[in-house]
């Protein structure tokens, strides 16, 4: 393989990893941005998406199963998120530390539920055959470069989800309300915005996106009761690095982390790369504690 092909391949891998981080972290950034809720059960929403994909594929096997699974997982996880917000989170809204503990408890309950329903070992979700190929470049200075269809597909989905949420927040009346509540909850409520309903909708949207992300992650990883745990730490990492609650920040942070890891893994092994990544994040946060993008909101000033 040509050296430049290898380097470009690593850039592609960096963006591919970034797209997974974006999908995993977007819902977390949404719910934190609006409600200051640190949702420890976010990883289990990813897990739920994986299992919903498994069940959908049992009913709709064949090439289109995965496309049906994405909206199913979105709606299923959004529904569960809505129930969670309505029963647990809004009742604890004034007590952030209690929310953290309560959602952690919910995550344990969901893990055990998955274990009891589907077994501890995990279930099989395979990528459809139309994603089995790679885009290969066989001539020129990039000869030997292989770009897997699955990863290209995930990049496209991540871009669509990101674009969809940006449009929702910036172009719709609902988005206007969300931004208003985000900037100043009391004033927005005084103007007649039903902040309570906005909370419920945004939290459901966040968990729904996590459910969809779970389907996507199942294409490249396992579906087990504890799978959420492997993504929750990187998800928190990019949300904190990006600036708590900022979607743009989360996106930039995902790309920075993805590219940083892919580039550094050319020289060191994966374990060392993880250490260096965390060192980088710690130093960065020392100099810029607010993250990449500063979110101006009354809620964070209190």
């Amino acid at each position, binding site marked *: 393989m040509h050296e430049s092909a290898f380097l470009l391949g690593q850039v592609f891998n960096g963006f591919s990893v970034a797209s997974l981080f974006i999908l995993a972290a977007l819902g977390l950034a949404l719910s934190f941005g609006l409600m200051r809720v640190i949702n420890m059960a976010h990883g289990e929403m990813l897990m739920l998406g994986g299992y919903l994909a498994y069940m959908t594929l049992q009913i709709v096997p064949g090439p289109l199963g995965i496309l049906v699974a994405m909206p199913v997982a979105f709606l299923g996880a959004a529904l569960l998120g809505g129930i969670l917000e309505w029963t647990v989170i809004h009742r604890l809204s004034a007590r952030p530390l209690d929310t953290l503990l309560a959602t952690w408890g919910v995550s344990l309950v969901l893990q055990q539920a998955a274990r009891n329903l589907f077994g501890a070992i995990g279930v099989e979700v*395979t990528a459809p055959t139309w994603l089995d190929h790679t885009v290969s470049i066989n001539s020129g200075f990039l000869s030997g470069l292989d770009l897997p269809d699955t990863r290209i597909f995930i990049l496209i989905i991540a871009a669509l989800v990101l674009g969809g949420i940006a449009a929702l927040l910036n172009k719709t009346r609902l988005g206007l309300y969300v931004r208003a509540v985000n900037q100043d909850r009391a004033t927005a409520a005084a103007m007649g915005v039903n902040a309570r309903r906005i909370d419920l909708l945004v939290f459901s949207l966040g968990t729904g996106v996590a459910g969809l992300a779970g389907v996507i992650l199942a294409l490249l990883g396992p579906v087990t009761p504890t799978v959420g745990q492997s993504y929750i730490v990187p998800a928190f990492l990019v949300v904190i690095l990006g600036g708590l609650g900022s979607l743009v920040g989360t996106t930039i942070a995902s790309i920075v982390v993805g590219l940083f890891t892919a580039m550094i893994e050319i020289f060191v092994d994966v374990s060392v790369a993880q250490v260096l990544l965390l060192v980088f994040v710690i130093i960065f946060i020392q100099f810029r504690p607010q993250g990449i993008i500063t979110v101006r909101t009354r809620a964070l000033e209190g």
Partner: protein
Amino acid sequence: MAVKKRFGVMSALLAATMLSGVTAAHADGTVKVGVLQSLSGTMAISEVPLEDAELLAIDQINAKGGVLGKQIVAVQEDGASDPSTFAQKATKLIEEDGVVTVFGGWTSSSRKAMLPVFQRLHNLLWYPVQFEGNECSPNIMYSGAQPNQQALPALTWAEEKGYKSYFLLGSDYVYPRTANLILKKHIAHDGMTLAGEEYVPLGGTDFSSIIAEIQQSKPDIIINTLNGDSNVSFFKQMAAAGLTPDKLPVMSFSIAEPEAKAMGPSLLAGSYTSWNYYESLPGPTNAAFVAAYKAKFGADSVVDDPMVHGYVDVYEWAAAVKKAGSFNPTKVRDAAVALGSEDSPLGGVSFADNQSMVQTGYIGELEPDGQFKIVWTSPGLIQPQPYDPLTFPGKTCKLH
């Protein structure tokens, strides 16, 4: 019959048991043994079926009249996937319950944590899982493969197939690091090339950079010591990159029948593993074992190498007790190494002077139905070597 923890009943006997050691344990026509596996936590996935196999053997022996006229009572404890819990529960089993021996452990860290307990309390642990060797204790019977019974037979097979260039990939902990240390010595010694060596943290899910390195270094075969779910991520991402097992062979040391079933045989079909047991092994003893297990745990359950070693350990212990005419751990381990070949689902097995099992090595190719087709058998039984002579020259393990 198995009973759960009996703190209340035992607390009265506690002082007496601690003083008199093993004698109190079989005063009433029963004898207690400990079964110590992880029933919760990340390792429960593998250790619960292993415990089932150990309890199955105990039930079968009891049904035939027990050992030395006594029924075996299994005292079960949960190691909770945590080494210090293993050590604590081992102490509890020996001191409070007065068990005469313990069957258990899976991870090397759990074994290392229990070792000083068994040495201090002069008891005996039967450890059923393949491991990295490099250890030699008179208080442990090692029935799982030593590196020269799993890793090195895999290398021999690969060299016989004509593979010249090897890529070593593993999870970042003691077993893959030590196994690869030994493999590297032998790869260099045999004049083969090392295409690369990479480790990912336990539970790692991203293999994009490693797959890029594999594509660049073009090995003939990958030797995979990844643990658990990382395997699913690795094989899915290899398939996405077009590197299915038929294009680039993968030899895995931590994938057996249950893992293959869970990960989806279609994903892994055509990849290779190296074990001392496969469910598909021929022979009436294995057929009887598989039938008994499926009768108890369901027709779609599968058995694997560590489970069978746990099962065989119980039978080996019972045979050694009969030979010694005593439950005393020191007499039992002396008798165990003097037993000679015992029939088992693995075939004829015995314990060598270093308290490790003499057994045959097999290479299996995974078929789409989730079972392994045996494609290679070691020429005869392999004597266990806790210390690889190339890697650790001068170190030997002589216990009897």
